[in-house]
């Protein structure tokens, strides 16, 4: 089986709003993500990191440059690239179980098998007992776990995450980090994770790609793998703090530039 490495080759993207001038959001972004690598895209808001993720997902047309996954050019969305959004994006009219079943139905999985698979995923994200609840009855953290279960159910080789924990409170976010790492250990995937949280990026990712303020370019790529394996203890080490400080200094300048631009 071919690997699921991702190659961004000189990707540029221009937003053309209905009113107003076109905006260059991404300017010649090149980046390689190895199979089963966890890469975080870190940058100030408006730097085009989400746009880059949507292009990889096949949701927006690639106008300039190319993106390949396992050697195949991205032209449209596909079940090989699962996505988790910040706003959860659950089907509000479907129950937890029905949401998780959706992708399996689309993959034409036989009924008995998909029932078993859905239950397996619901158990994995610790939502046993909430199968028949509607999203509106769940907390933010629970909703995001349903979204993760729905995406993982069809077992995509690549997982795209668009600030998935950005709307959660600090405690829930920490728990979700641990859960995500545990899930990734059980079934490793290539992950592209968009965030503006420096600690989150260092804690979760193997490498962090720092992006510049608009137009988005790759400013620097920093290796953030823990030196001695285990991630949970990593956060308490001086190496971790040093990495966070180093990245924060990189992001800081861009964040200031982004703010200045916004205020004219």
């Amino acid at each position, binding site marked *: 089986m071919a690997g699921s490495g991702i190659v961004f080759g000189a990707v540029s993207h221009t937003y053309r709003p209905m009113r107003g001038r076109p905006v260059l959001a991404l300017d010649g972004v090149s980046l390689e993500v190895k199979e089963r690598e966890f890469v975080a895209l870190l940058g100030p808001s408006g730097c085009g990191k989400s746009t880059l993720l949507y292009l990889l997902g096949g949701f927006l047309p690639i106008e300039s440059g190319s993106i390949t996954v396992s050697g195949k050019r991205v032209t449209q969305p596909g079940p090989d690239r699962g996505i988790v959004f910040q706003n959860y994006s659950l089907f509000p009219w479907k129950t937890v179980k029905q949401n998780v079943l959706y992708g399996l139905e689309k993959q034409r999985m036989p009924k008995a098998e998909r029932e078993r698979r859905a239950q397996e995923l619901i158990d994995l994200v610790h939502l046993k007992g909430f199968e028949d609840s*509607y999203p509106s009855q769940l907390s933010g953290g629970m909703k995001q776990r349903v979204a993760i279960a729905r995406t993982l159910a069809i077992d995509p080789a690549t997982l795209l995450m668009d600030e998935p924990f950005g709307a959660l409170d600090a405690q829930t976010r920490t728990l979700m980090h641990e859960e995500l790492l545990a899930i990734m250990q059980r079934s490793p995937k290539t992950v592209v994770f968009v965030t503006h949280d420096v600690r989150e990026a260092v804690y979760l990712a193997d490498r962090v790609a720092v992006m510049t303020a608009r137009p988005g370019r790759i400013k620097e790529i920093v290796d953030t793998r823990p030196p001695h394996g285990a991630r949970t203890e990593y956060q308490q080490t001086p190496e971790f703090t040093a990495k966070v400080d180093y990245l924060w200094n990189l992001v800081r300048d861009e964040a200031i530039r982004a703010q200045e631009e916004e205020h004219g």
Partner: protein
Amino acid sequence: MTSENIFVRYLPLLLLAVLWEIAPRVHFVDPSELPPLSAVGAAWWSLLLDGDLWTNGVSSFFNWFFGLGSSIVVGIALGVMMAWSTTIDDIASPLVKALYPMPKSALIPVMILWLGLGAGSKIASIAMSCLLPVILSAYNGARGVDQTLIWSARACGASNREVLWEVILPGALPEILAGIRNAVAISFIVLVASELLVGQRGLGYLISFLGEGGVYDAMFAVVITVSALGFFADRAYLYFMRRTLVWRE
């Protein structure tokens, strides 16, 4: 709902009924113009017994059902298609916006001219009048569906067709159901108005026939019947709407 107690909630209605009974009896109003409620009730009973209410009611129901029903089917299809395709939107939007403020009853004479005096013109009048609120609600509902919901479905492997049926339509449903509620209200107005104007059957016809014949107690009985039907149709619809949208908290 201000009060849980059903008696307290409908007390104003009861007071109105008592007033309606007393005012004509003490000649505070002319009883030939406003017969006492008990006389109206007796007239209603005899209309029910000799079948006039039933036969005309069935005829009205037929017009109402097919008029409203076709507007719902066509309106949802058109509204969603306008949201789906910019080309269809560009063609249909100006028409919809121009027709929206038109008084619905103004259509009735046009429909009579085109379709004659029978059921066809009444069904068409109702359908045309109810069409616009349904189109607009489906259009706004479909356009309001979160982009990331559509993307999530596409990433699960859904085709464009599947996205339309499985994401856009259910996503637009709350707005569509609210639009249909407006359409139900309009349908009753246009139903009665179209039957009042011309025709040989229907509850609206019965009102004008009894009114012209000076049988005012029976006329009021039919007016009350139509109002009650409208009220209960709305209540039943609200109940159906709440049950359909249980997933919204």
